[in-house]
């Protein structure tokens, strides 16, 4: 069991470290880093499923007999891209949250959100916008 399954167990441990960081840490950026670790653990798990003993990369050549399975690799290529896209969106949100709340700690954001009377007011009316209704009527 240990000899044949150790890879899976280590990868599960890595997933769980990532998941722990996501849930327990209040810092939004740290959460995103944790999310990446969690996902990378899953990616490695998929790739480990496709590996064949003594196999080589699935690029067909006359000298090679055994190939590892290409399908998990394709799935993970897709998943990596989805992961970085999510990371970019999360980082964009974190920047905006920092600009409006002045912090990236989730707990502080929540307290500031609860105590600040300005929070009920739409952001653009604070900036002296307020031309929205007029725009709507043009349409």
């Amino acid at each position, binding site marked *: 069991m240990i000899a044949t399954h150790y890879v899976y167990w280590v990868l599960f441990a890595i997933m769980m470290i990532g998941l722990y960081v996501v849930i327990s840490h209040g810092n939004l950026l740290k959460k995103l880093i944790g999310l990446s670790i969690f996902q990378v653990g899953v990616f490695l798990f998929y790739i480990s499923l496709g590996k064949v003993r003594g196999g080589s990369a699935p690029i067909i050549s006359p000298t090679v007999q055994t190939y590892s399975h290409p399908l998990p690799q394709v799935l993970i290529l897709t998943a990596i891209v989805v992961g970085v896209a999510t990371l970019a969106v999360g980082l964009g949100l974190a920047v905006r949250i920092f600009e*409006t709340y002045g912090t990236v700690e989730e707990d502080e954001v929540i307290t500031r959100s609860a105590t600040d009377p300005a929070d009920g007011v739409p952001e653009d009316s604070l900036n002296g916008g307020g031309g929205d209704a007029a725009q709507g009527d043009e*349409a």
Partner: protein
Amino acid sequence: MTAQLPALQVAIPLICAPLCVVGRSRRFAWWLFLLAALASLAISVLLALRVSREGAFSYQMGGWTAPAGIEWVVAGYNVPILLVVSAIAVAVAVYGYRAAGLELDDWHTTLLYTFLCLTLTGLLGLTITGDIFNAFVFLEISSLSTYALVAMGRRRRALLSSFRYLVIGTVGATFFVIGIGLAYAVTGTLNMADLAARVGAAEGNRALYAAVVFMVVGLGVKVALVPLHAWLPGAYAEAPNVVSMFLAATSTKVAIYILTRVMFTVFGTALVFTALPTGQVLLVLASAAMILGSAVACFQGDLKYLLAWSSVAQIGYIMAGISLATAAGVSAGYLHIINHAITKAAMFAAAGLLLARLGSVQLGALAGLGRRMPWTFGAIVVAGVGLIGLPPTAGFVSKWALVTALVEQRQWLVIAAMLVSSLLAMVYVGRLVEVAWFRDPAPVTETASPPKGMVAVTWVLVLLTIWFGIDASLPASLADSAAQALLGGGG
């Protein structure tokens, strides 16, 4: 050309999205979204007709036959969802023509329609696909564009709501991927029909049990089933109203669909409901959702938060029906998916009318306005009656079906939870009535009445709930054929 319809169902909104960006104009983007929505509706009607004529059929992407390539399946179980999603999209498009501009500047309105096209693409693709990893990809398309839409909300809290949704949603999606991985390790395939065929051979496999658990939990996040609902209230309430209307009516419904598809047609009732106690656990959670959602809704001071919490409760009703795993239960669940989508869309549309006129939907700001805005509040009350589940609205029909299914299975505790939840719903709808008619009007600055198009859409939706309450033959036949397709073992 009809053979190509399944691909067009998703390809049209997909192509419209980048075109919106190229056009760089709010009007142009709106036209494209309307076009995408109308085309999807037309195609889904055609697909529904074809399914009712000749039964389920599949479409092989790229010309590769099923397990090697990706397969799309149109059958009784996803036709109702396709219809609901595209019909709501049309309503949102017409409603959004004037509504979107009230909350967003020109540039963000253009992006709004782009993201709506993308969400539509994701939801339709998720519904129609017959390949489980492909489902994950479409799930992420719809999720990512949803995060963007929520973040467009006017209040700064929208950003935090969006971020939380992003983190929770991504964890859920990753759980789903882990589940796919475990099932793939045991069966070697990703095609849903092929999976279903091979799952039977791997009976008693513990990896498969874990796969079920991970998928149900992962999709449970997207469904917002208690206790995984934390993202929902903020996301629905802080998003721009057009977005709330679209999401509340469609996104959780599609998640519920894909959950049922995985439970019934991929893993099968024998594994999910007999070998594992999924049914009991889901029933308990559904009951908790009904009570918690309605109870919290009673204490909300903001109409949109109230509606969002009521959605949590309504998801409980749907899940209760589905987790019975009987034909009557699943059919009731589907019926409630259809009816609640229309009712909730009508509710948010009415809330949008208030937002357009008052700029706020705090209950305090609505005091005594019932007489001054009879049409708006009339819509709210009728739709509210639908949320409680009283005749003659559609809500009553589906709740009646649900109670019948529950009685059949002797789930008295769940019925009790339903009753409590309905009473609580009466409280929060009653509160709205009390605020609107029996309080002294607050001094409000009078603004122009909301655009006619928005009022028209709201009332069309409201009348639709009444119509489906009186003559439920169309939704009921769709729901019945869905239940049949799901439980009949059709892969």
